[in-house]
């Protein structure tokens, strides 16, 4: 399982699209917002929590279909499925590699981008924490969606339609945490709820994804 995690990170780094793509997409979205809304700083600070979380969420979505798609096309998913490694572990390793190459860089870069939207420093820290706790859920739910749409031609769009509604609770609590922090209110409750979503996803989705993979590889 660790070998698969390390291999997927290595592949993401070497093929270029892994670390960079999601981060650059996030940067562009955040930079475009002031152009669209105008330079009013108080208006920007008002929408910043929602916009930053939405941007991170959409950036996560970009590379979801590659999680299993590439391995399915070149036949290595068949070989992994016939190996002693359970498909549940394959799913966990791949979701973890996706989080490491997209979710983690997004969480670390988000406070810096928050400055562009006039986000207060303590709210920036809340953003970083909420993304650190919430992006694992995004990767886990997204990788689950990828197992469902495996083998479907142009499954990327279907994958987005499937996964985005499932992202709603994470988005609500994530943005709420940042909004509370920017108003100087305590934000520990939404953070705990995000953590609960991530842990719940990590507990349940491996089994659902293993079953979906087994059916789709048949």
């Amino acid at each position, binding site marked *: 399982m660790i*070998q*698969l995690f390390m*291999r997927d990170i*290595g*592949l993401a780094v*070497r*093929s270029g699209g892994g670390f960079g793509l999601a981060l650059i997409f996030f940067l562009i979205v955040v930079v475009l917002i002031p152009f669209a809304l105008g330079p009013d700083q108080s208006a920007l600070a008002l929408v910043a929590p929602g916009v930053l979380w939405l941007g991170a969420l959409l950036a996560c979505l970009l590379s979801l279909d590659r999680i299993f798609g590439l*391995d399915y096309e*070149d*036949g*290595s*998913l*068949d*070989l*992994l*499925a*016939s*190996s*002693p*490694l359970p498909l549940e572990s394959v799913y966990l390793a791949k979701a973890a590699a996706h989080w490491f190459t997209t979710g983690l860089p997004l969480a670390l870069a988000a406070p810096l981008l928050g400055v562009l939207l006039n986000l207060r420093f303590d709210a920036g820290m809340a953003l970083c924490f909420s993304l650190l706790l919430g992006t694992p859920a995004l990767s886990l739910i997204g990788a689950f969606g990828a197992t469902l749409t495996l083998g479907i031609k142009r499954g990327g769009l279907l994958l987005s339609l499937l996964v985005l509604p499932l992202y709603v609770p994470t988005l609500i609590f994530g943005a709420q945490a940042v909004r509370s922090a920017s108003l100087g209110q305590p934000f520990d409750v939404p953070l705990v709820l995000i953590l609960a979503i991530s842990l719940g996803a990590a507990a349940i989705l491996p089994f659902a994804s293993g079953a979906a993979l087994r*059916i789709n*590889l*048949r």
Partner: protein
Amino acid sequence: MLQVSNLSVARGGISLLHDVSFSVQPGQALVLRGANGIGKTSLLRCIAGLQQPISGTISGSETVAYAAHADGLKGQLSVLENLKFWSEVYGGPDPKSALAAYDLQELAQRSAANLSAGQKRRLGLARMLVTGCGLWVMDEPTVSLDAQNVALFRIVLQAHLQSGGAAVLTTHIDLDLSGENLDLTGYIATAQRSSSTFEEALE
């Protein structure tokens, strides 16, 4: 080592093979023969555990290493890294000897994307060695190999059989292996929509 009894196999809801039975002992290779589309690949996928048979049982004492049509190589990784990954997944032996067996030492550091079709196939076959599994299930292993490399493959397979391993494979080339051939033509199921498909999907 492998016991298959009364196995019925379907693909995409269409029954292909019916009531196939055979066994493979250590040191033996079973070569499956039959026309294109008869169900050789589906049978091998059942043995590899990738697909559920409609009926019948597959029992075996060994872990199975499966080599499909596609080699499952990662172009961004080097030849050695590709083998190393599978060796670690299976907890198998050091990839160096597998490289030597298929004459790939000089290509060890080359990225798999820059290999020819025959070299990729050799790397895919070398993967079987690093799994350390006793039973090899191989789907058309000799495709895109030239005569010299087919001979190389035969030597490796013979060594595997002599060390107590076994193999089930499909090939159109006569490899002159110890073991037997199984012609699947006698087991063709009447081509009809299998009534079990719905139950199979529910499982």
